[in-house]
């Protein structure tokens, strides 16, 4: 089924730059039926009820991509393709999207999938009485209607040209779960998820493993090869990689901080390294209401003191790709001039001297080896230009509350790989947003963000976003470190892993030779 002409006349929705190394098997190679795959995840999964967990993290997303489905999915070229929705039509102002749903789909518990079921999911997340943390991410959607069994209508607050691409991966909002299941199981539903996907939950031992079995009634069962998916949390990077080498795991999540192992795997013919560079970046925010960061000279000096290439070399053997703007190479926003401040130690020293007063502050880091390593590198960079940074190690769980309460001077953050930069840019920088961490208000910036949100033409939006980048870089209210590069390492026998859009490792359509 094709998307309607008007949408396809517009520029490709999503340009991605993939750095794949022998990733995708061509359709010609034989897909072997049967067998099981063991996936090593970084974290344990707590649950799947959006009301309880709020957000699906990377580990939960891997399981969710096998058990749940969404209206659409993105193919290799980044184009939106039908999944649970067969076709979609926008209104003229792109504020209303009408989806036609696929008939004959059932949830694992037999409940039929239809527009009512989808609407029930949405309403439950949006209902203020449920106080779902997930509601934040659908704040741009006014409501969802189900005029008939197979028709779904989305009413958005602002125009969204890319909307179908935004519901293409099974996050906590887009993944459809069975209304019967959550209504009957209550609190227990969180660990007994029911979806429409190719795999169903068979057993789950906390902290140990989750076993998913093939769904015999899946509507697309010819494309499903493996009988079983076993998911295991293996938080320790070395142990995780060792499991892969010893064969206990067939595929493991990894990242560039584990560069030694990634590079080792690249040289090993028995292993395949899958990688994808998405949009967004790992970043940090300055609290501009607190001295000494309330002075733009100090902020600029701190940013100019960073030699990202050396940093990447020191911590990731050079694998990490420096970022100069919030969009990255993986985004369709391409700027000729993003206003990035250059690496200039002398200028930085001069700015600090100009400021006159001693520059001392604390920065939050996660209490993990990589948090510590990054902290020490930044400490060193800033020491060289005369600034004293004290590392404040906190648990990962403490960073969001501290950030939202603005109890920080500098905090790390992340801009996630999404199909459209609007959600995060608006949330991170618009005056009044709870996530505008920098406490920085600029009417010109606000205007640009609003304009980019409501405009339809891609070129105009790109222009707006590049102007936003220039403004942010000049004022140095946030700074960008490295682009989002996602990694998964697998045995060479694992084939059929799709591109890791948004960092999701989707093994539901893989097979083992």
């Amino acid at each position: 089924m094709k998307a309607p002409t008007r949408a396809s006349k517009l520029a490709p929705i999503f340009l991605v730059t993939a750095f794949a190394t022998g990733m995708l098997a061509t359709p010609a190679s034989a897909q072997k039926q049967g067998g099981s795959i063991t996936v090593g995840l970084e974290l344990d999964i707590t649950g799947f009820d959006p009301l309880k967990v709020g957000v699906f993290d990377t580990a939960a997303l891997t399981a969710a991509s096998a058990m749940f489905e969404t209206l659409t999915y993105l193919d290799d070229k980044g184009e939106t393709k039908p999944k649970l929705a067969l076709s979609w039509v926008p209104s003229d102002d792109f504020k209303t999207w009408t989806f036609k749903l696929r008939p004959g789909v059932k949830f694992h518990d037999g409940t039929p999938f239809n527009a009512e079921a989808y609407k029930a999911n949405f309403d439950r997340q949006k209902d203020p009485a449920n106080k779902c943390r997930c509601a934040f991410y659908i704040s741009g959607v006014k409501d969802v209607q189900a005029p008939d069994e197979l028709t779904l209508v989305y009413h958005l607050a602002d125009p969204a040209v890319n909307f179908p691409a935004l519901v293409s991966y099974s996050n906590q909002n887009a993944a459809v779960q069975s209304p019967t299941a959550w209504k009957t199981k209550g609190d227990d539903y969180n660990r007994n998820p029911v979806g429409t996907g190719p795999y169903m939950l068979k057993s789950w031992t906390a902290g140990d493993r989750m076993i998913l079995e093939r769904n015999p009634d899946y509507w697309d069962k010819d494309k499903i090869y493996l009988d079983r998916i076993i998911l295991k949390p293996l938080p320790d990077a070395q142990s995780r990689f060792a499991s892969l080498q010893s064969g206990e795991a067939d595929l493991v999540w990894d990242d560039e901080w584990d560069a030694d192992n990634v590079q080792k795997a690249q040289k090993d013919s028995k292993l395949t390294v899958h990688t994808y560079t998405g949009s967004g970046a790992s970043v940090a925010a300055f609290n501009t209401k607190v001295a000494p960061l309330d002075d733009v000279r100090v902020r600029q000096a701190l940013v100019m003191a960073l030699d990202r290439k050396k940093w990447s070399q020191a911590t990731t053997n050079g694998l990490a790709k420096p970022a100069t703007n919030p969009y990255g190479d993986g985004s369709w926003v391409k700027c000729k001039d993003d206003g990035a401040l250059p690496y200039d130690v002398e200028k930085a020293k001069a700015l600090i001297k100009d400021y006159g007063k001693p520059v001392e502050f604390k920065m939050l880091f996660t209490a993990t080896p990589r948090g510590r390593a990054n902290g020490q590198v930044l400490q060193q960079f800033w020491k060289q230009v005369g600034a004293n940074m004290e590392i404040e190690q906190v648990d990962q769980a403490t960073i969001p509350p501290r950030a939202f309460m603005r109890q920080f001077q500098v905090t790390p953050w992340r801009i996630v790989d999404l199909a459209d930069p609007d959600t995060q840019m608006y949330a991170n920088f618009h005056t009044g947003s709870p996530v505008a961490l920098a406490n920085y208000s600029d009417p010109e910036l606000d205007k640009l963000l609003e304009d980019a949100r409501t405009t339809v033409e891609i070129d105009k939006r790109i222009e707006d976003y590049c102007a936003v980048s220039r403004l942010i870089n000049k004022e140095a209210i946030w700074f960008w470190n490295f682009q989002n590069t996602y990694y998964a390492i697998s045995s060479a026998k694992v084939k059929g892993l799709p591109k890791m859009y948004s960092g999701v490792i989707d093994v539901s359509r893989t097979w083992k030779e």
Partner: protein
Amino acid sequence: MATLELTLGEDVQAQPAQRGRRLGPLFWAAIGWVVFVFAAAVFADMLPLPSPTDMDMLARRAPFSAEHWLGTDGLGRDELSRLVYGARVSLVVGLCAPVIGFVLGGGLGLLAGYFRGQFETLVVGSMDVLLAFPPLIFALAVTAFLGQSIMNLTCILGVLSIPAFMRVARAATLTLARREFVIAAQALGATHARILIRELLPNVALPLLAYFLLVVAVIILVEGSLAFLGLGVPPPIPSWGSMIGEGRESLDVAPRLAFIPAIAMFLTVLSFNLVGDTLRAITDPRQGAL
């Protein structure tokens, strides 16, 4: 050292008869090593070493060279320098934390063993409460609450060592309180304070001091374990435990990064254990040595 438990010797039993051989070459080698490490830590600033925090980011994990005698670590910092400064942390925490235990635990044990009765039950009960806590969780929780620093670390470990000292002091006091010289002093009408300070304290202090050294060894190991988990002193201050933890990431590429601090820690802990064990055997009151 499975779970950071700080009660060492349930083997505070009578030791077999000692032979002079005990103060042999091993003992003196251990003393020598401790003195050497101590001196290196104290005089670290005066030694011709590069800074332990300066990173030569493009020369990480460099092999031994004239510029870096023991090479560089994962972030390009001089390994030898970090080793020496790391000794500082291990020794500071290792020597100061047990002092807390010695003073508080030893004091409580002395009083409990002497006065007995309900006071003793209260003291022993409190120690049992403290001991019932998983020590690592205690350390984690307090660190989460108070933040990481050498001071906090020393205090946590000091508090965790109190029960062990209490037990030793109490056991020693129980033995000594029935000896003739104490009974004689009581018969002569000496006050409790006088008996405690003049008769008991000197005799209890000796086995406690010997035990002190054993606790130092344990604390160094515990600090190492905490640092390994990332709970030790805050970066960039080097610590042997955190060096091992960091070196672990490069175990297959450059195992020396983990092994060098591991050997240093092992030798130091071993030395303290040797000296402490020997001294304890000599000063155990049940031997009637004094």
